[in-house]
């Protein structure tokens, strides 16, 4: 029997962080968006210990300010795309600059510098990822998915899907279904 899950990464990360901090007896406050206000000075060794523990969860203590911002951009975009309720009608550039308090131009340049890809590209990647998840869930038709993700038509979605992954959404659907059958056979 297969159980399906939906993940809220931010919630998970926060919970993990809190646990690790508590285990290490580090006082903190305001566990926010990728940030913790630590209420005591941390020695480098302590930070290394902390880092080691966090390594098991693939959580990295980021030094670089730029990286931090870039990570924020990524998280904001992820949130924006994977939003269950609102179809964001605001342009992504406006949304981002408002959410992060910087001009879009600055954000864009920074992002490209650090990740070597553009924000637009990243947005597309996220959208397609979300589309993949929706396709797998089988709740919505392609038209509904296209609408939900702000595409003007199914064809538009298909085109971008194919451009990004090299295969059509229907082929993707088919492959996932056949994979499922194969797994059931093997188990």
């Amino acid at each position, binding site marked *: 029997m297969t159980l399906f899950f939906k993940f809220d990464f931010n919630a998970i990360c926060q919970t993990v962080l809190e646990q690790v901090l508590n285990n290490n007896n580090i006082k903190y406050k305001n566990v926010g968006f990728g940030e913790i206000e630590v209420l005591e000075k941390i020695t480098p060794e302590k930070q290394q210990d902390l880092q080691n523990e966090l390594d098991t969860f693939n959580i990295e203590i980021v030094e670089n300010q730029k990286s931090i911002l870039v990570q924020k951009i990524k998280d904001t975009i992820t949130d924006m795309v994977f939003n269950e309720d609102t179809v964001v009608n605001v342009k992504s550039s406006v949304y981002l600059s408002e959410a992060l308090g910087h001009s879009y131009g600055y954000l864009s340049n920074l992002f490209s510098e650090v990740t070597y890809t553009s924000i637009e590209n990243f947005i597309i990647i996220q959208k397609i990822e979300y589309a993949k998840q929706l396709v797998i869930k089988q709740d919505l038709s392609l038209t509904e998915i296209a609408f939900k993700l702000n595409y003007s038509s199914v*064809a538009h979605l*298909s*085109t971008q899907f*194919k451009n990004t992954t090299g295969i*059509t959404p*229907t*082929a993707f659907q088919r492959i996932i279904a056949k994979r499922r059958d194969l797994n059931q056979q093997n188990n």
Partner: protein
Amino acid sequence: MIKTLSNNISFLRAMLYISALVILVVGALTYRSVTEVTKSSEMITHTYKVNVELEQILSYLKDAETGQRGYIITNDSVFLEPYLSARNRINNSFAELKVLTKNTPQLKSKLIDVNTLINKRLIAFKTSYRSLPKKDIEDPNFISNFRNGKTLMDSIRDQIKGVIKLQNNLLNKRSDEYRSDLMATPLLLFSLLLCSLILMYLAYNSIYKNIKRLKITNEELEIFKESTNQSEIVSKHGSWTWDQNNDVFTFSDNLYRLLGEQPQSFEPTIQNFMQYVHPEDVEQLSQQVENMKKNVELPYIYYRVVHKNGNIKHLKAYGKSIINDEEETVLLGTTADITDEIISFRALEERNLELERNNQELSSFNYVASHDLQEPLRKIQTFLSRLEDEEAEKLSDRGTRYIDRIQNAATRMRLLIDDLLQFSRSNKADKVFEESNINLLLEAAKQDLAEVISAEDVVITSDAFPSMTVIPFQIQQLFVNLLGNAIKYKSEKRSPVINITHQVIEADNDAQITKPTKPFYHKITFTDNGIGFDNEYADQIFVLFSRLHNKDEYSGTGIGLSICKKIIENHKGHIIAKGKPGIGATFIIYLPID
């Protein structure tokens, strides 16, 4: 026919019974008449005998009287003789009469009266002649006695007359009765005999007609039997019947021939038949024969027989039981010699296998050749590209040009191999037909051509397609090829517009479908506004490697449309092309609907 015949038989039986009845009645009536006649003649005889006796008595009395008179006259005792003998004679007669009248009490009593009177008379005689010695004829006693005697005589006569009359009356009455009977009887007899004759005639008529009919039927049967025999010979059948109740078989002439024997050359029994059955099939056949007895219908059974000369023949038998006139179950069977069919079937199977093997080899060859040719070609192209990239500066102009031409040639070869590979992949073998969403396949095809579609501003309009049972990848390939062609052969004056329509049509209504396999077809039409082609080449363009342009004008391998045709044929449909030079081309696809 049998019905009417049996009705006729009932009719004849009825006739027979009626006739018998009539004859019996006639006989009875005749018997009665004869006895009546005998009876009445006896009666007459009887009456006359009685009369005679009575007359005799009278005569005796008269004689006695005459004698007495004579004696009185002559006093000669000779004359007394009749008187003396009269008594005896009269007694005798009375005795006779007694016998004669023993059944007639009326007469009996009368005769007793007469007898009494006669006795009185005789006494009177005695008295009279006793009183005669005085010889006084004038003696008043004598005269009164004489007169008494006369009176008695008269009474006797009267009585006798009375008796006679009575008898005659009786006789008359009886003969009157008989007469009426006797009158009626001959008439009745005659009319009955007439009826009988008529019935006999009718019966005869009926029998005659039936015999005639039977004769005709018989003749027809003979002809039919003969033609059946002949048809059995021609179609290599034999037939048999099995009366299950009496376990009696009949085999038709040709059944014997199927066993390699002369007709009716041995007694038709199961055992004799089994002698000819192939030893390996005997057990199964015996089992099925057993089943035959229980079941109404014998399903097809197959077995072999071996002729005396060693030939093995394959037979196929079928039997069905029917109930005949006498409510008995008879199994009718037909056995056919299917040896020829089996032989040709086996030959066909072998040929098929051979063909399949051949096809398989060709297919593999095609596939492997195309596939394995790609590798070295790719290497050539890749190394060429590396050469271009890294040694560009060191090459002369000519060198660069040559490398260019090599690249072109290689590219062309690449295209050819790709198309050949595609062609070999469009075999039907082990391809699965699935219920598919044709609209999605069309979308996917458009996706494949997305680049060129946007580059050339191609406008594609299409009807909504219903789902169809197809090989999805092949139909997608078909769409890609047709759309690709429409775009490739676009007109320079305008951007390509392609319209795809769909209809469901009745096979009979469209002249293009020459040998419809299903009543309804999908009709899919691709129309473009490209350069078109001369309709003269409508068939040729589907031929493998056939092109209407050389490779410098338009790229292409001449395989694309052949692939389309092959795919359509895999789906048991047709494809037709129509072209108008300078205006556009139309491709019509027919796919049968299951």
